[in-house]
């Protein structure tokens, strides 16, 4: 019979003192307290065995014979040989030195934190962060290494055995719980009132819909399709460089490439609209059908937003006219309508129709004829 968990007998016997002390004067198993994981399992302190020496085993009241009953194995001697007093002293000094290192490093950390040059450009700056990290590492590592060395050298290297409590409850227990659940359901009267069941399901079910408007309200969908399908380019808009100057015909050498933008400030519009203006020899540019007047004198403009996942396609190879996206290596041929020649992209880069205005500046003929950037479900449904 297991004594109640708050039985003072078992607790007083082993609450204090070192492991060795506890093991040398163990509570007789008959009066050990219920100290298993659950009171049901009845695992007691007596179920701990120490196998680091035969003597301790004897002290624990268990012979080698008893312990070897499991699976017919002899108990294993574990742990290193006990330390000599001299070795123990050395180990103790080692641990103390590590703890001391910690304390010194904390001081060094604090001093360096206050006096070090931490601002960029100051002469001491390159050393500020490395030394700060080093002192912090030593401070933390000293305590950590000290504790580990201490545990491994000076603490008792025991091999304790604890019985596992059985998983799963006894079948009576399960039956009783199921019974209690059923009884509660009966007490609630729900079984006899089908109207309540139906309306409860309806009411609680509708509650699940309650958060939906809030969730839906997180996005602004009013012009979703239009925003996705259009960019900031409009008819007659000049092609501006990143520094705000417009590009004039003749500015680009043959083989040159320029990132250009419409003259807008809104981040959304700017994110959509980067264009790559490329100049090649007119005879090298294979003009696509229906795009005869989209390019001028070997100048051709493509959206630089990758048709795969929206990275900027920026790497242009002069000789081959290949455009490479650095994110996933989709490669497009700028001389043939930016058609895909390699990689995971499925569509050519959309081409921006350009012309030259009266003052000789490049202008867009209008917006792109198709959505730029990555594909999406409604892309072709307009």
């Amino acid at each position: 019979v297991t004594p109640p968990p708050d039985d003072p007998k078992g607790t007083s016997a082993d609450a204090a003192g070192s492991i060795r002390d506890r093991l040398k004067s163990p509570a007789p198993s008959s009066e050990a307290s219920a100290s298993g994981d659950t009171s049901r399992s009845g695992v007691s302190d007596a179920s701990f065995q120490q196998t680091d020496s035969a003597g301790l085993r004897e002290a624990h009241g268990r012979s080698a014979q008893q312990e070897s009953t499991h699976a017919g194995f002899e108990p294993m001697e574990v742990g290193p040989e006990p330390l000599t007093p001299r070795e123990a002293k050395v180990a103790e000094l080692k641990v103390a030195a590590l703890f001391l290192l910690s304390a010194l490093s904390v001081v060094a950390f604090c001093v360096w934190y206050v006096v070090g040059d931490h601002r960029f450009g100051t002469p001491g700056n390159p050393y500020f962060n490395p030394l700060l990290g080093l002192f912090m590492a030593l401070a933390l590592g000293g305590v950590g290494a000290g504790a580990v060395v201490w545990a491994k050298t000076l603490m008792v290297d025991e091999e304790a055995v604890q019985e596992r409590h059985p998983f799963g409850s006894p079948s009576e227990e399960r039956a009783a719980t199921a019974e209690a659940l059923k009884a509660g359901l009966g007490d609630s009267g729900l079984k006899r009132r089908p109207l309540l069941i139906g309306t409860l399901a309806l009411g609680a079910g509708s509650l699940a819909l309650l958060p939906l408007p809030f969730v839906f309200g997180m996005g602004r969908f009013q012009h979703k399709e239009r925003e996705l399908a259009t960019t900031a380019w409009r008819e007659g808009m000049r092609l501006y460089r990143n520094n705000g100057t417009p590009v004039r015909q003749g500015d680009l050498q043959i083989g040159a490439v320029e990132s250009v933008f419409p003259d807008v400030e809104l981040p959304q519009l700017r994110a959509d609209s980067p264009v790559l203006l490329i100049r090649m020899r007119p005879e090298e540019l294979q003009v696509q059908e229906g795009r005869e007047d989209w390019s001028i004198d070997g100048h051709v403009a493509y959206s630089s937003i990758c048709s795969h996942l929206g990275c900027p396609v920026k790497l242009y190879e002069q000789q081959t006219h290949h455009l490479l996206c650095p994110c996933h290596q989709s490669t497009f041929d700028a001389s043939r309508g930016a058609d895909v020649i390699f990689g995971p992209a499925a569509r050519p880069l959309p081409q921006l129709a350009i012309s030259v205005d009266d003052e000789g500046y490049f202008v867009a003929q209008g917006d792109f004829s198709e959505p730029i950037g990555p594909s999406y479900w409604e892309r072709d449904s307009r």
Partner: protein
Amino acid sequence: MTLVSKATDGTGRWVDDRLGSSNFVRRSLNKVFPDHWSFMLGEIALYTFIILLLSGTYLAFFYTPSLGEVVYDGSYTPLVGVAMSEAYHSTLDISFDVRGGLLMRQIHHWAALLFMVAIVVHIMRVFFTGAFRKPRELNWVIGVLLLIFGLLEGVAGYSLPDDLLSGTGLRIIWSIMLAVPVVGTWAAFLIFGAEYPGTDILDRLYIAHVFVVPLILLGLITLHMMMIWYQKHTQFAGPGRTETNVVGSRLYPAYAAKAGGFFFLVFGVIALLGGLAQINPVWLYGPYNPSQVFAGAQPDWYIGFLDGSTRLMPGWEISALGYTVPINVIIPTVVLPGLMFTAMLVYPWLEQRFTGDREYHNLLDRPRDAPVRTAIGAMALSFYMVLWISGGNDVIASVFRVSVNNTTYAGRVLLLLLPPLVYVITKRVCLALQHSDDELAHHGIESGTIRRLPSGEFVEETVPLPMPYRAALTRVEPSEVGHGQKVLASGAPDQDVPHGSGHEDSQYLETRRSRSKGFFRPKGVSTTPTRTEPSPAELEGSGQQ
């Protein structure tokens, strides 16, 4: 000593009077933990998570999650006068103007990388040793969820600085959302607030990164720990170790000292990395600009496999009935990880179904003990590694001066060919290791001494394997206890079959058992020591006759 007595007598009594905690505390102190180096992997994950909470909280005191445009005026001179978001500005301030801020930022990033490493390696340990088996399936599921939410947390944090690299990553995330059929554009607008770059995304990522996901992680970790505590840790086979006990050291004091010391060691290593090893130098990348990017851009390592799968995928797209399905995007970034994580989540039940093994397991398998499982794991790992390495194929191409196109083609071929090959090889290696184990366990170590039998036959004397090793190899498990038999080992008697499972039909069991044999053991090799050759003692006896 007086201090201890004071604590137990004074404070201890005060607490115990109110909570009655003595019994619980003593039971906890006496709890036995088995020891093995591989059990520390989960500890590293836990410790790095604590470090992430500490360092992340400090960073949050200085970070501003806003896309509002400001002009840089901090101490990092190369960027003075450049227009940038407040988020990027505050990240630069943490790096250059907050004392110790850079150390904290780098500690946070390194800890995040190691957190994911520790989780992945810990999951591998649990998988290859069969620690996920009954009764620990739920903890396996929680572990996989921790992996998934860890990934999400990492991605959200990676996007916060709003530098060129993270902005590009965010645009890729936006594009992947758009690619999802039917609901994609709705989901993308909902989460980003409006068309990319959106107005709200940074605030939402921030609250997800510092509150929502950490809370989920914390809850899952707590559950994970509670289950480990309640179910007790698994252990490897060895002398005196059975399915029904735990052999190791008690929590207090040695185990606690080791584990506590280990926390500080992990923290120390991460502090050293944070001080000496530069990571994610966002000031070199500059603020995000949708028209700019740099070559060789790489995500954090744990996203690398998705980057790789995206690169290897051919450019296929379905366009029909006026709708577009970009399968070149959704297969590698949505379908593939979905399948991978689902397979991981359900694996314990798949194995149970396949082997018919519904018994409790507290003793761990060595990987060779379950050749099919180990082969499946190695196969999955090789698949993952091909994807992961392909995520850096542009770097490989430029370092080794090979065509980037060829690295992609090689990746596609390897992705299909390598996993089956690895499966076959791993299984054969496991079986070969089992054979050599059987030799050792049953015949002992070759001694080099040749003895002639009276019949004229020559035999080599063998020395029996020392007990601890033999115990680890043969895994004889007690059958008198109610649970934990080695199930369906060859030659196992019928009573080993779980009763009341509804599958007593003998034909069914026979099929199950033969499948199970293939899963765990090669045919014709027994788990129990047999004496097919004369032992030294018998030889001694026969020599005297």
